[in-house]
């Protein structure tokens, strides 16, 4: 690149854009998804039904969405960022009022074909909205607290709604992803320190708002053996399955703990357990390596983008993706309490797959449009 001050202001043709698609990223995404198909095939005792087949269909649809999103000009996402955010917020409010009650939490909207989880949509919408928000704030202004009120509200509103569902995992993810974007936007360190101190002080109050089963999960996390047949069961069984996999694993389709249903939710949140039981630490580290490459791509793309919106968007998507990976794997290994966070691209589940691929679409879009100059005002049609 020549001078970072010079922007490439011309419109790109579709052909130019296709040329710019980051195929390496696509290959890693596909490889990860294929691991997912294999594990789901095993989870069904060697059958593509009921999970693997549907997952393939969803992934294909997701890929199409990813490419579409990637090819749409970054400025379009900038323009509609708040609108998308408001839409997602409305959906969240809707499930809060009318949402189908499933598993003790109001999380889904039944669309007939599939259940839509607005909290998943919000993960991307919040990243878009925050990226636009910080994009509009000048570098000097970031130091002033009054400029932080608006973005804080952007995070707080959905986090509160999701927390009310109650979905502790997603609420935490929204807050952490938002925090990462604040950090990248240049908010001073001491402010983070103050917020963290404040949050710690709030823990007793927050505890009061938790549902009994959530409290139980957190207590169980600290001492799973206290209730081996009850709340601690999932963590213990998951660790047994993982540990018994050893270095090389029990072999594809040979996992006993998962197949005999000792491991709960083996096709969704605990899918990593099945992978690690059958393929051992080799399989687990391989998947971790794929995730690591995706994260490196994410940061690399963020660094390459020459507009603040793109950078923040790329970092937001990458951090969200990281949070999925970390929370899920740490949870199944007993490092974090059990919260409902799927393993990205591998766990069976429609909405998270679409959310993630939508996010990767945005990431690729940032790369494709990395040299596009974007005005501070999204509405400025000076381009």
């Amino acid at each position, binding site marked *: 690149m020549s001078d970072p001050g010079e922007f490439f202001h011309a419109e790109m043709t579709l052909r130019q854009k296709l040329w710019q698609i980051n195929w390496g990223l696509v290959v890693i995404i596909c490889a990860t998804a294929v691991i997912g198909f294999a594990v789901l095939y095993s989870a069904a005792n060697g059958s593509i039904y009921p999970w693997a087949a549907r997952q393939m269909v969803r992934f294909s649809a997701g890929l199409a969405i990813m490419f579409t999103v990637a090819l749409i000009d970054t400025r379009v996402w900038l323009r509609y960022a708040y609108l998308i955010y408001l839409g997602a917020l409305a959906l969240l409010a809707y499930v809060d009022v009318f949402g189908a009650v499933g598993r003790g939490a109001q999380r889904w909207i039944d669309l007939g074909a599939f259940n839509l989880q607005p909290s998943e949509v919000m993960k991307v919408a919040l990243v878009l909205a925050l990226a636009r928000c910080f994009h509009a704030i000048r*570098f000097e202004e970031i130091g002033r607290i009054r400029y932080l009120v608006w973005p804080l509200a952007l995070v707080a509103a959905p986090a509160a709604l999701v927390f009310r569902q109650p979905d502790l995992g997603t609420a935490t993810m929204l807050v952490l992803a938002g925090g990462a974007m604040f950090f990248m936007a240049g908010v001073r360190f001491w402010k983070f320190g103050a917020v963290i101190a404040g949050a710690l002080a709030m823990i007793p109050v927050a505890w009061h708002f938790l549902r009994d089963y959530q409290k139980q999960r957190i207590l169980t996390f600290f001492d799973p053996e206290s209730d081996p047949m009850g709340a601690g069961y999932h963590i213990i069984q998951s660790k047994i399955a993982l540990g018994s996999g050893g270095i090389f694993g029990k072999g594809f389709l040979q996992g006993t703990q998962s*197949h005999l249903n000792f491991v709960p939710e083996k096709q969704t949140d605990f899918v990593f357990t099945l992978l690690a039981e059958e393929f051992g630490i080799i399989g687990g580290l391989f998947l971790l390596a794929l995730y690591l490459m995706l994260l490196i791509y994410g940061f690399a793309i963020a660094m390459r983008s020459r507009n603040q919106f793109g950078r923040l968007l790329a970092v937001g998507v990458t951090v969200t993706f990281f949070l999925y990976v970390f929370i899920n794997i740490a949870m199944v*290994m007993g490092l974090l309490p059990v919260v409902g966070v799927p393993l990205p691209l591998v766990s069976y589940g429609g909405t998270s797959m679409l959310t993630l691929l939508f996010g990767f679409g945005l990431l690729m879009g940032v790369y494709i449009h990395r040299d596009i100059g974007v005005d501070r005002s999204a509405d400025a049609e000076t381009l």
Partner: protein
Amino acid sequence: MYRDRSRYKMFTRRALMLSGGQAVLLSALATRMYYLQVIESARYQVLAEENRINLRLLLPSRGRIVDRFGVELAVNEKSYRVVIVSEQTKDVEETLDKLGAIISLSDYERRRVRHEIKRRRGFFPITVRENLVWEEVAKIEVNAPDLPGVMIDVGQSRRYPHAAAAAHLLGYVAAVSEAELTGEPLLALPEFRVGKDGIEKVHDLRLRGKAGASEVEVNAIGRAIRELARREGQPGDEVVLSIDMALQKFAYDRLGDESASVVVMDVHSGEVLALVSTPSFDPNAFTKGITTAYWRELTANLRAPLTNKAVTGQYAPGSAIKMVVALAALEGGILTPDHKVFCKGYIQLGNARFHCWKKHGHGHTDMYKGIQQSCDVFFYDVARRTGVDRIAAMAERFGLGQLLDIGLPGERRGLIPTRDWKLANKGVPWQLGETLIAGIGQGFVLSTPLQLAVMAARLANGGRAVKPTLVRSVRRAGEGKTADTGAEPPDFPEIKIGKASLEFITGAMNAVTNTPRGTAYRARIKEPGMAMAGKTGTSQVRRISMSERQSGLIKNKQKPWIERDHAVFVGFAPVHDPRYAVAVVVEHGGGGSKVAAPIARDVLLETQRRDPSGVSGPQRFARG
């Protein structure tokens, strides 16, 4: 563009920090993975196997108990129960309706089944009814297509084909009690039964066999997925008894309603051929869990149906001990058979008067007559001259007052008193009057029917210390068809009694039954070659007071049952070549000659007709 440049620098810096933080967290995950899957892997592999593999014990079948001819005394019988597997039927209620039409289920049973179904997983078989008769099983099998989820489960239960006749001997099995749990996993199985009495108890460990095991892979909710390995158990050993069940049954029937016991044994080998105690109980009732009503009936009965009187009942032998007293005198060189005593119906010792059973006395009485007619005055005199310690020493040589180790629970020792014994146990010196009483088998003297049979056997076999045995062999199931006869009986030591003395005594016993004045003449065996010799005994349960004697003796029949005398008889047959010894004790039966002797006669006659030792026993003791 300055601002953007510094912003970009800051962005780059912070991106490095953020990605660095993420890298640290990811390495934490990798470390955790290493900890779980490499360092702790062995432990988790064990836990995983424990999770997955369920060891199920396979019940071994309990060993049979058979008599000397291979007749089954305790066997295992297939028992059928009907179970329902709720997940295999669409409508449990409808299936229960249909099943109820076949074996008529009560409301209570249906409620219990419904309750169990709710409590258990769908694949778990719920017992609807146990111990089905074959007809019910057949009906259910025929209707199987209409009864989805209904199955017949086959188990084993202990059965005693002869029920009460050998109940005390065999004992019974029942569910394991809390106190019997030793940690042995077999004992924890609900279907497992242990021996609670008799041979079943004494030989329980051999009869049990060894449990097999089946390693079953189970899933998280306990459903068996497949069998991984199976180790067959070993059935329990078979116990062969010396009993002749037909004789046992005969004796049992002969005793009828009496509270009595009979022991028949081979005088040479010591093999017990019959060991009966009445009244008895049905051991089959314990196998399936005894009902409270039946248990109450058994325990409330004054005649103690649960007690094996043959080995645990202790009675004053009465006159049946007189041979031992006579031998003590003869062998001690105190007296000769010619010793004479004049019996006027009583003997005076200081202020006390000791009566003969015959009010007006036997007149001049020698030892032969004393045994033949059971003169008490004669034996008061013999006992007084001989002394209680000599009598006790002789009694012990005949097996009285000691454990004979027949191998049945609760065998009692009886009691043969001595001077030392009295001083040690009662704290007062021995009285001469007590010697007199002991001389006619009363007072402190106690013996079990088994001991009396052994005494008779030792008199009959020429003075060998034969010991009673009940078990011929314990062998692996399926080995050998019937009891083999190859084993030589043990060579019992002599008890060192002079031949002349012994022949004199057995001759006098012959006179008891086979001479017109003998006390058991009316109960003699008339069949040629089968004649029996013996001795009657009548043991008082309570002392007869002076006032009672003066006002005339009360007839035994008029007393309440519990106060009536015990009737005792010991004997052997055939007289010319003794082979079988018998002892009969009828509690509160009255006179030995009237009640016990006829029973002994019938039993000995049947024994000789069947000749169980002759059929299968060694012939080496046959003498010309």
